[in-house]
């Protein structure tokens, strides 16, 4: 029988980008959040260099407000694949007084991550940070390049981006600059889920429907977890069958009502969804330009 290799074009493109990153940069790192997009990146990186192991470490900027399920999953994944994991904690910067924790009802550590990320990039001298951002997620991300050059302050100069023609990627940078690399730029949320289904990739359990104590605020379903998530006295806690469509901090990711217990349920649910993925991101609701502002400051 004639065995023919024919991958989907998005996979071919992502692997090409990951290989270019390793070839053109001295110290790449994969920014790993434990979410489905960065888990997909890990699989793509495995494929890009197989049978060699992934030639760069994973780095997790831990806000300390992660879902425990995500952290367990992260540790098991790196152990199984024999990967190097670097963890840097937002808590350290809070303890040392370098950053101030937000207060009040909508307090989140999301923005504080940026400072820890920039410190870590400098500490290890990373010149390329591979991330799982996708252009379909949000309007400012729709304008992002595959190789996105950042200055020493991690800043994104959105009006002065390099043209990217065909699939030639120019990785030339000055000393002190670094590049954010987005191999799955052109994937949609549904593409990622379809790939996870087809490849049978394991993902954290919070992506599937489960019973969880929650409360409601502003029409969104919040996790009731009093250590991390501020709750008013009159915000009643009750149990509900929910799942998470994106995985950020507990304090910035709302749950959605769902009966998707398996990966094919999830794919079906996404296919028919009338709400966008980031519709349940509390951090994006702050203003119309929330993402653009965070990106300029060096956010993922």
């Amino acid at each position, binding site marked *: 029988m*004639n*065995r*023919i*290799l*024919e*991958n*989907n*074009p*998005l*996979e*071919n*493109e992502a*692997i*090409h980008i990951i*290989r*270019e990153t*390793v*070839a053109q940069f001295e110290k790449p790192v994969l920014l790993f959040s434990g979410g489905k997009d960065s888990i997909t990146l890990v699989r793509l990186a*495995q*494929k*890009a*260099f*197989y*049978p*060699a*192991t992934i030639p760069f470490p994973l780095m997790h900027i831990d806000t300390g407000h992660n879902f425990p399920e995500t952290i367990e999953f992260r540790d098991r994944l790196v152990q199984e694949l024999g990967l190097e994991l670097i963890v840097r904690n937002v808590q350290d910067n809070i303890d040392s007084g370098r950053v101030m924790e937000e207060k009040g009802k909508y307090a989140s550590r999301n923005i504080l991550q940026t400072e820890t990320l920039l410190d870590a990039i400098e500490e290890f001298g990373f010149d390329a940070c591979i991330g799982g951002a996708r*252009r*379909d997620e*949000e*309007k*400012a*991300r*729709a*304008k992002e390049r595959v190789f996105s050059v950042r200055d020493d302050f991690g800043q994104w100069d*959105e*009006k002065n981006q*390099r*043209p*990217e*023609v*065909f*699939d*030639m990627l*120019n990785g*030339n*940078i*000055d000393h002190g600059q670094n590049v954010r690399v987005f191999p799955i*730029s*052109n994937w*949609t949320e549904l*593409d990622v889920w*379809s790939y996870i289904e087809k490849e049978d990739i394991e993902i954290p359990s919070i992506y599937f429907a489960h019973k969880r104590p929650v409360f409601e605020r502003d029409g969104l379903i919040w996790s009731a977890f009093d250590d991390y998530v501020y709750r008013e006295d009159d915000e009643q806690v009750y149990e509900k069958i929910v799942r998470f469509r994106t995985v950020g901090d507990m304090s910035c990711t709302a749950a959605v009502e769902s009966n998707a217990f398996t990966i094919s349920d999830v794919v079906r649910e996404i296919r028919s*969804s*009338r*709400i*966008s993925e980031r*519709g349940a991101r509390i951090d994006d609701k702050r203003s*119309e*330009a929330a993402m*653009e502002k965070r990106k300029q400051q060096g956010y993922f």
Partner: protein
Amino acid sequence: MEVLKIVTAGSVDDGKSTLIGRILYDTKSLTDDKLEAIEKKSQSRGYDYLDFSLATDGLVAEREQGITIDVAHIYFSTDNRSYIIADTPGHVEYTRNMVTGASTSQASVILVDARNGVIEQTKRHFFINNLLRVKDIIVAVNKMDLVDFDESKFDRIRSDVEKLAAQANYKNQSITFIPVSALKGDNVVYRSENTPWYTGKTLMEHFESIENQDVYETADARFPIQSVIRPKQADYHDYRAYAGKLYGNDLSVGDEVTILPSMTKTKIKEIQFFGSTYDTAKRGSSLTLSLENDVNVSRGDTIVRSESIPRSGKELNATICWMDRNPMRLASRYELQHGTNKIMAKIKDIKSVLEVQSNQQSHSVDNLVLNDIGTVSMQLNKTLFFDSYAKNKSTGCFILIDKQTNTTAGVGFIE
């Protein structure tokens, strides 16, 4: 899964963002939360209609000024396939954005304002699409509602564009003309009752009918090496394979191949991907392959079939689109990136610049400025193996990098 990528071009105010917003709305691709945001914003600005351009204009400055600044990518799908639209803005850096978007697109929509007809920008957009050999061109004559859906206005634009096409180099382009109103939705997804004289497809019907081919098209197989895979694990001690993406044509185990630039001949021993082996790899695949002989191969080398060796030389003639604010000057040196290979190039002669308005080539100049399209001859510091862009897209183009700023300053199409 099939993905079709489409680039859209038009001048400021031609209504590109509105057209894309309309496509998203009429194909029910706008989710409820995004639609709600558009409704709110339109209301707060006092519009009595929905401003769909708000769906795509992503940056603060864009929303403030009502213009699009940078190439935006928009995703939607039908039952038939997925679409990516590269929305390229039509002002200051128009050539750069247009080339960026068109280089990876199978089809191109050129918007023309029915009131203004074919203007300089339209000619430029047409010329760039022709230079890049984009297969499928759709001329969307927009704002037909503002000219009372007058057929003669549409016909006039059609005949003006057909005149441009008659003068163009690349004749194999399919050009389709569609009268639309992005604002009102005529002939975008739904057929208009206002254009009884138009019997062709709506824009969306046309998209659905485009045959999906990868942008590099069928040509001789080219396999530029991205990296050499040499695992550090003990059980792979003697393992050596070459990672890259295959362009132009399929490759099979046993094919007689030549490694460029060393001209070493060998055969393909194995085609591998993630632990499986294959007899044949389809073009477009990212893969790993190993060779029969123990040969010296490194990043920047290219593997080709021995029966189809490309041209080679230390001089190159190319059409260059200049994309940098810093002009390209005669006698300057640039880094030339050709696939995964990087060499140095010196500008020997700028033979002509395209005068878009008259479609004439002016003669010999000293520099190319931002948005200029010129024919240039270059001297290379090493022998390069290349094809003409007309013959093989992947090995027929290159980028020029300014070593002082590291920016991608120009893109070239080899003659």
